[in-house]
């Protein structure tokens, strides 16, 4: 049972790693990486939903068999990857501005600088 559900277990492990990173790490870049990890977990989950046994990619050009995996989860995942790219770009831009202001990207040192 574990071998068949292995992709789903991987998704859960990725999401748990991502949430752990968000909760316990103090560096801003590590927070952004944590969000990217959660995103990868959710995208993997979406793609795995469409898998069918002994099927090929859902492309009709020179296809080798008529049995194909579901194409809709692939479209959902593609949209999610694009959105994830845009949010990562925006978050990294904010990190650049924070670095310009505080000269550090650790949350503890920012808090100390603000209280001064």
């Amino acid at each position, binding site marked *: 049972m574990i071998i068949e559900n292995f992709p789903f277990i991987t998704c859960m492990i990725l999401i748990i790693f991502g949430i752990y990173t968000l909760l316990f790490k103090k560096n801003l870049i590590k927070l952004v990486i944590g969000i990217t990890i959660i995103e990868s977990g959710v995208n993997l989950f979406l793609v795995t939903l469409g898998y069918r046994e002994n099927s090929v990619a859902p492309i*009709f*050009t020179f296809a080798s068999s008529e049995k194909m995996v579901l194409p809709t989860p692939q479209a959902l995942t*593609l949209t999610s990857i*694009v959105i994830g*790219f845009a949010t990562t*770009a925006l978050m*990294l831009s904010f990190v650049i501005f924070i670095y*310009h202001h505080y000269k550090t990207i650790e949350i503890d040192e920012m808090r100390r600088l603000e209280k001064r």
Partner: protein
Amino acid sequence: MSKIVKTITRIAYVFIITFGIYVIVHGHLTPGGGFQGGAVIASSFALLLIAYGKEIKFLLQNENNFSLLESLGALAFICLALIGLGTTFFHNFLANSGILFGNSVAYGVNSGDLNTSGVLPLMNISVGLKVLAGIGSILIVMMISVFEDLGGESKRRR
């Protein structure tokens, strides 16, 4: 970056851009499409920026033109969707019509025909244009910021 990296970059970026355009235009037949092809072309910009750094004047000074290209791509997408407003929004008015990309698609497994599926390749091209311009602008702005940080505090923009 060293001489080897610069030489290989100078050869490779043409192939990367060609591959990107192939992925964009064949989006309705093979895996790919607007975003994927645009991201491939933008990765060639990233390669140029990393290998050559401050010497790429073409990219670093043309930020405004990239914004313009981005807006044009987005406008083309929305206008293509609005032209079909006679029936519905986003209606594929060129499919099976014989005008531009108008052939009919054969049923089942076939050897793909580029001249099919109407509005889709046009939308792929406009999305690809927008994505390459958008990612290109992000890369250029971030690299300018990095060069300012490395080059001294006096150059910081307010």
